[in-house]
């Protein structure tokens, strides 16, 4: 009984155990302030991770999201600076944010098209884009953060609404959106089919390239949203924001049980993965574990989670 429960919800149970331990052992972990702090810290990467789940389930990957966040923050700040005098701060910021979303959506679509027509793995295209977008962010800002936002803009990324950090609402909304897409739409079904067996999906009349391209595009938009939130949090567009996030995001997706080979994974699992990483980082900090050790533990976690999922998969097959 207990074993079959563990087989079905391995990461959930480990997460609950870890959470309970930290409640008891880590000074300050159990306070409401700290809980909100954890939530706030995971939202940005979480928003992207939900999109990344779709991309990885469809059998592709997006390594460019870290630079994408910085880039979209810079675009928003740059547009805001250019248009504030003419339109006022809020319309200017809105236009900037929409511009960032549109650009990253198109970049995602382009990645999909390159995959389709030149058979270029998205691993390579987005690895290139990681550098391209970083360079573009620096070009826009000329290497210095653009501080063109009014301080009220800070609310979006750092404000509190009904006692909960504002970005958490966006995080929840994105989760609901992606959950719906993956479970209640034919697009979601197509994502799994395309990632599980491309040829079978194609012969079933599914537009496999549209499916993959759309997943990449949506992830682009979500990356831009995270970028705007970060820009709001630090009240500037900075080219050095979110450096290395792509690996955290992908780690969360993998810890959540999504297979890098495609066709298998859930956005619920990714939510667990995101919470897992957020809580462990916060807990270790509170326990005074050195930052270097934190890195070692986080890396080990990814390997451990994948090993565990594989072992459970194999034992389920036997049963």
């Amino acid at each position: 009984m207990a074993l079959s429960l563990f087989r079905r919800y391995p990461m959930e149970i480990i997460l609950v155990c870890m959470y309970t331990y930290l409640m008891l052992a880590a000074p300050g972990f159990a306070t409401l302030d700290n809980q909100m702090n954890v939530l706030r810290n995971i939202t940005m990467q979480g928003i992207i991770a939900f999109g990344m789940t779709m991309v990885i389930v469809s059998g592709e990957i997006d390594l460019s999201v870290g630079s994408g966040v910085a880039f979209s923050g810079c675009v928003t700040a740059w547009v805001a600076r250019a248009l504030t005098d003419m339109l006022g701060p809020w319309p200017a910021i809105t236009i900037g944010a929409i511009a960032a979303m549109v650009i990253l959506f198109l970049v995602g679509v382009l990645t999909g098209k390159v995959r389709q027509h030149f058979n270029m793995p998205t691993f390579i295209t987005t690895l290139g884009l990681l550098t391209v977008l970083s360079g573009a962010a620096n070009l826009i800002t000329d290497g210095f953060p653009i501080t063109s936002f009014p301080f009220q803009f800070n609310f979006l990324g750092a404000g509190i609404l009904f006692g909960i950090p504002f970005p958490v609402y966006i995080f929840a909304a994105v989760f609901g959106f992606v959950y719906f897409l993956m479970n209640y739409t034919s697009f979601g079904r197509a994502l799994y089919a395309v990632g599980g067996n491309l040829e079978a999906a194609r012969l079933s009349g599914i537009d496999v390239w549209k499916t993959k391209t759309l997943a990449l595009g949506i992830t682009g938009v979500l990356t831009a949203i995270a970028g705007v939130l970060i820009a709001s949090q630090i009240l500037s567009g900075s080219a050095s924001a979110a450096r290395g996030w792509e690996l955290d995001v992908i780690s969360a997706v993998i810890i959540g049980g999504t297979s890098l080979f495609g066709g298998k994974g859930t956005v619920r699992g990714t939510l667990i993965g995101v919470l897992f990483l957020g809580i462990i980082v916060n807990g270790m900090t509170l326990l005074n574990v050195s930052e270097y050790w934190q890195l070692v533990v986080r890396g080990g976690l990814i390997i451990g989670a994948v090993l565990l999922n594989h072992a459970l998969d194999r034992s389920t097959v036997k049963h």
Partner: protein
Amino acid sequence: MSAIVETQGLTKMYGNVVALDDFSHKFEPAHIHALMGKNGSGKSTLVKMLSGVTQPTSGTMMLNGRQVEFKSPQDAFEANIVTVHQELSLVPDLSVTENIFLGRLPRTRTLGIDRINWGQARLQTEELFTRMGLNIDPKATISRLSVGQQQTVEIAKAMSFNPTLLLLDEPTSALATKEVEMLFGLLRNLKDQGVTMMYISHRMSELAEIADTVTVLRDGKHVGSIEMAASSLDTVVDMMFGDVARATRPARSTDISKKNPILQVKGLTRAPAFEDISFDLRRGEVLGLAGMLGAGRTEVLRAIFGADPHDAGEIIMDGQVVDTPAPGSMVDLGLGYTPENRKEGGLVQAHSIHNNLSMASLSKLAPRGIITKAVEAPGVAKQIEQLQIKVDSPALPVSSLSGGNQQKVVIGNWLNTDPKIMFFDEPSRGVDVHAKQQIFQIIWEQAATGLSSIFVSTELEEMLEVCDRILVMKEGRLLGEIDPSKTTLTELYTACMEGL
């Protein structure tokens, strides 16, 4: 002359199934012995036992008069028996030399360092090629060679072990006519050097050209062995098939031949796979597309379905001209296709039976793109019942089902789209006898309700069993039409091999 291989009462059982039954025969040295028989006749089992892949249940094998027992392929190998399998086993990105000496490249010591002696390796390859009369660059990368050349390298690799017995499992199945010529030249050359060969092929026409003797197996039994020079191909075909009892199709209530065509294909061409294919499929008809492996049957079906492009020709479906067919739009027009390999093209193995049964009908079930399990459930339940798919729960992965039930899931996935036309490409492959009959039953029942279908199978007796009308293809061309009720299996086989 004493026999090189002699078997006595050789028998192989898989559970209760007899794969090879009491096989006793002597194979003369320095001959090319063809092994003939339909799929499942036991010829591969015989080869597997000779190459040590499986062990006989009873009976003995003698090699050069000494009794041998092969517990592993290594044992057979050490007795100088080498097998060339149907699938190439070369590493595409390595050179010819490296492939031939894979894992046993000659070594030398220089200054106390053990290193590969490349010069020696190339020299040995060149010697080997000269002996075999080959003209291939030992430094060439395998992937740059033609399939025929690759097959030759495969045989050269086998020859580098100096075998006394060479087992060849369908070495020509992937080759073009010219490459076959080259290969046969090589085999004759080897025979002159005293090598004995056993040769499995489905291509009848090759027998007269290359084989000295033909040993025919049917349902695991040794039907007989004959000298090729003294007999005709008809004799061999008769031996292969014997008297076949044919399942009878239920009588049709309407005369199919008077129905209007629902699908018209005119001059469909994609060189070199197929050329100038024209035919009509009538409403409610089960039309067969017969031919040997590589005749272009699957290629034609895939082109009509839009899975692959075509160069020229016209496709008219239900009176509507289809300019550029694509799977998505053809599904919308009412065409379904169960591909020849269900693992690669028909199913997502890791996904549930439920999801696999509604993969093709997603756009029909969810016109606005929003879908729930509840919307799909009726279709899933309907096919499980109608096709008698044995499942514990539709939530289980489809890979948990037997071959026959998996095939039914593929068919059910398509029936859920309410197709007007179905292409059944090898629906009976890897399916047990009972499930096979059920699948044919499904095809007939669907035809009775007005579904038109095209049926392709390598098993020709199935074609005669299932189809209202059969078109014969050979080397990418349509040769003509056959009425299955007036045709014997031997006649159909000869038509596919030699033309009408």
